[in-house]
């Protein structure tokens, strides 16, 4: 029983082959085997949202998936999003609006925010709060987080609305 299983997962663009115990969660695999410690574990039962990652392009809790289930999948962690500058404007807005204090919840919150910004249009504050219903933050009181996400969404919409710089024919 409990034989180790070989898995191949593409993590942040790199193919990683590893032997894992079936009971090892994707969160523990990312943190311990791959040393990608930006993914945090708080409750390990789907309640706090600190462990959110992208699995085949969708936001999921890495504490609620065993690494073996992710065999063959494409995973992107907060490190991957930061490296390819996919959340640069969110990071900037979080900094400006004081949307983090201890930072424990921040990777998960940024994942949720990334999901919110992927949708077209500027979300209302209520929609942002709704999206954050699965993220616990024990420090900020959420208000600053909502501010920051709203700010980033506005900026993105304004940038998209600006006319393209004219190029000479």
């Amino acid at each position, binding site marked *: 029983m409990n034989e180790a299983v070989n898995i191949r997962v593409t993590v942040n663009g790199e193919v990683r082959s590893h032997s894992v115990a079936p009971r090892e969660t994707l969160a523990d695999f990312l943190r311990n085997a791959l040393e990608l410690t930006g993914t945090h574990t708080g409750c*390990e*039962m*789907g309640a706090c949202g600190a462990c959110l990652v992208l699995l085949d392009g969708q936001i999921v809790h890495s504490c609620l998936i065993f690494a073996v289930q992710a065999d063959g999948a494409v995973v992107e962690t907060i490190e991957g999003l930061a490296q390819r500058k996919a959340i640069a404007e969110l990071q900037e807005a979080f900094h400006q609006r004081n949307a983090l204090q201890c930072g424990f919840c921040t990777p998960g919150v940024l994942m949720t925010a990334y999901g919110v910004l992927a949708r077209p249009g500027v979300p209302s504050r209520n929609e942002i709060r709704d999206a954050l219903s699965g993220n616990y933050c024990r420090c900020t009181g959420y208000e600053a987080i909502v501010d920051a996400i709203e700010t980033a969404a506005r900026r993105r919409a304004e940038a998209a609305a600006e006319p393209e710089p004219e190029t000479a024919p």
Partner: protein
Amino acid sequence: MKARAFSYARPSTVEEALETFASAGDEASYIAGGQSLVPALALRLQAPQLLIDIAHIPALRGIARRENWLRIGALTRHCEVLTDPNIARYAPLLREAAPHVAHPAIRNRGTLGGSVALADPASEFPAMMLAMGAELEIAGPQGTRRVAADDYFIDLFQTAIEPGELLIAIHVPAVGPHHRWAFDELARRRGDYAIIGCGMLGRFAGDRIDEIRVAFFSVGNTPVRARHVETALTGGRLGPDSVAEAQASLAADLSPPDDEHTPAAMRLHLARVLMGRLLGRMMVTG
């Protein structure tokens, strides 16, 4: 908060899954989206020796209309329930319930089949099986059978699915132009399990209700159909008087338990209020 050690199998057909389970005896558990099972394993409420991952069985996928039924594969994820056009058109109660089921990240993994197989009495989708008059397709060693939702919920977390059997698909009678429906729930926070929830689906001739099914969740060990309410409403015109009559008969249908947060009388009161709102919405949409 770590699961006990187990082995892992990933079958690619229903037959293979059933055989794998049979050879493991009672020591196995199926896993679909894992959004209920993984927390249960982490808390060590369950400790199977073998986890059989059914998420890669093509026969459990897909959403297709066949004559007057919509077949929804068990592996359909909550997020697909939210966006699939056939579900929105032919099984709109599922579409209405989906935003209330957990949080976005959980909806990306959790499956409709997993929710209905688990049959948490506080869950939205199981109760909608009753409201829609759905049939559940179940595969076991003796073959496949279809069980009506009315015969499916037996007791707390207990359904017509026997150990080792698989829920294959959910069959929903397609909603047509004469149907009206409404869904809502009262919860402390979006994504939390509801204090009380209700879904209803009626077939109308003008204002007259020819047929109606009203189902509640978070009211006891299983989701419940409010049959006295249905009888009171059937054949009559939907208006303030019939709504009041329906609300008065609800006490005959529900006997919710007392719990530390919500006394039974309060839950019954909230059920009446919620049902009144939903019937009111059906008047407006008529």
